[in-house]
């Protein structure tokens, strides 16, 4: 049971990483990752909303009528998004401006809806919370990684700090949308290649042992 819980937590970080494995929430992924700090902030905001909405939906899963569950989810998610938005506007105004319209758009972020629909609506509260944290951290790490690559190549800096004189030869395209697609695609290929390698290694190791695969819970 304990390893099960751990699996729920780590599932979103590597195995079912929302960005590179489930390919969810690509719109904010491509739009806000022009700088590493933006990716980190977006990820943190989504993690908070994901955790709160997963817990809330899991608590209310018996109360919400099946027919109107999507509107009910959206109302719950929107509540937490509004909280994030107000907190950011008050305490981190520059990040609030940088994320722009993508902050309120978290309401319709498909990672959150997908986890609500696929996980929180049919799992206990603690598991839903762990799933929310895992997925959120996975999303944050992916966005920060994309942001770092784009910022280093496109502006010659990392988290706003210039790296030597790299800024003189930086390639603007990586800050533009086209560069976002390039970096996202390349990183996805790399991540999937690494996953396949590790899976092959696992299969080779398990070859003599009896099969004990767990059913993957995901969208």
């Amino acid at each position, binding site marked *: 049971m304990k390893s099960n819980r751990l699996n729920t937590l780590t599932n979103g970080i590597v195995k079912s990483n929302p960005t590179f494995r489930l390919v969810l929430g690509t719109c904010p992924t491509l739009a806000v990752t022009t700088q590493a700090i933006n990716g980190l902030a977006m990820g943190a905001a989504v993690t908070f909303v994901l955790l709160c909405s997963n817990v809330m939906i899991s608590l209310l899963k018996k109360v919400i009528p099946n027919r109107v569950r999507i509107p009910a989810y959206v109302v719950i998610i929107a509540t937490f998004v509004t909280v994030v938005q107000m907190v950011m506007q008050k305490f981190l105004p520059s990040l609030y401006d940088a994320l722009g319209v993508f902050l309120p758009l978290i309401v319709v972020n498909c990672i959150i809806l997908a986890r609500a629909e696929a996980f929180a609506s049919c799992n206990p509260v603690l598991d839903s919370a762990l799933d929310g944290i895992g997925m959120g951290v996975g999303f944050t790490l992916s966005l920060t990684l994309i942001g770092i690559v784009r910022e280093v190549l496109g502006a010659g800096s990392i988290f706003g700090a210039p790296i030597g004189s790299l800024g003189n*030869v930086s*390639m*603007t*395209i*990586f800050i533009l949308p*086209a*560069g976002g697609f*390039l970096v996202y695609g390349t990183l996805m290929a790399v991540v999937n290649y690494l996953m396949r390698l590790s899976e092959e290694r696992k299969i080779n190791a398990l070859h003599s042992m009896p099969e004990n695969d767990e059913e993957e819970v995901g969208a």
Partner: protein
Amino acid sequence: MSKYIVSSSPHIANRRTVTGIMLEVLIALAPAVVASVIFYGFYALFLEIFSVGAAVGTEALYNRIMKKEQTVKDCSAMVTGLLLALNIPVSAPFYVPVIGSAFAIIFVKMLFGGIGKNFANPAITARIFLLLAWASVMTTFVKPIVWAGGAKEIFKYFACIVKGPSGLGDVAAVTSATPLASLREGAEKVKDLPVLAMFLGKTGGSLGETSALAVLIGGVYLMIRRIIDWRVPTVYLATVALFALIYGAAKGAVGAYILPSLLGGGLMLGAFFMATDYATSPNTKTGLVVYAVGLGLITSLIRFFGNYPEGVSFAILLMNIVTPFIDKFIRPRPFGFVKQGKGGAK
């Protein structure tokens, strides 16, 4: 490759090989290379060698790492590298063609399966990549060298090797406005354009765009050798000329826009060498005409009404992407097929 290939009819036998075609293209590019050295000194040759070397090296390395059959011998990477170098201004630092060539080979060609499977022309896509990556480097054009200036002039642009245009010191003094930029500045400006100088190559531009004459020689050679279909360049240039005629008439200067439109920018290079890529142009004769008209229209629209001064590369990339749809809608009529229509054969 295996020696015996089984395929359905029709079978066409000739002696043409990929390597042979690519060598012909390289021969056709020779005048443009010579012109680039004449107008921009030895640094132009240096950039071209770097670009070709990077393209060939990247393909060899990619095949080695991915454990694929080595394909560099077909010379197509050399063509891609050379075409890309001809699209770069002489004031570019050395890493610009290197990164551009690597991008063209990896992202546009090899990841899609190598030669013949690319969705767009690698050289033109890499040019757009470089334009978006280093906009100021790619749009700073310097004046061609003056040979009377002595040996110093021949090596002048080596000053750009790392720093790019800023290595030349006072950039404003060497930057020359391209004739294309004048197209939007009214009919009076257009009438003053030195058309003969544009034809020969005495105006600013990228390495291969400078001399329309040199590109034209190579292009005509390819058409005579039947390497490229005559329809694409001819219809492309005709569409651009027609658009310029109409635009000129609307501006009250009938005809003044035609020659500058044809001779300026990368039109000649694009029309003869890049729009004619086999893998990215339609398969039927009608399709080629539709494709070329589309190229001409997009190029002219961007030039006269768009934000960028030059539209050739965007036009080629867009029409490359449309090519599969052109092939889908324009099918060749099977031999002996009779259309079933009113009064047709029953």
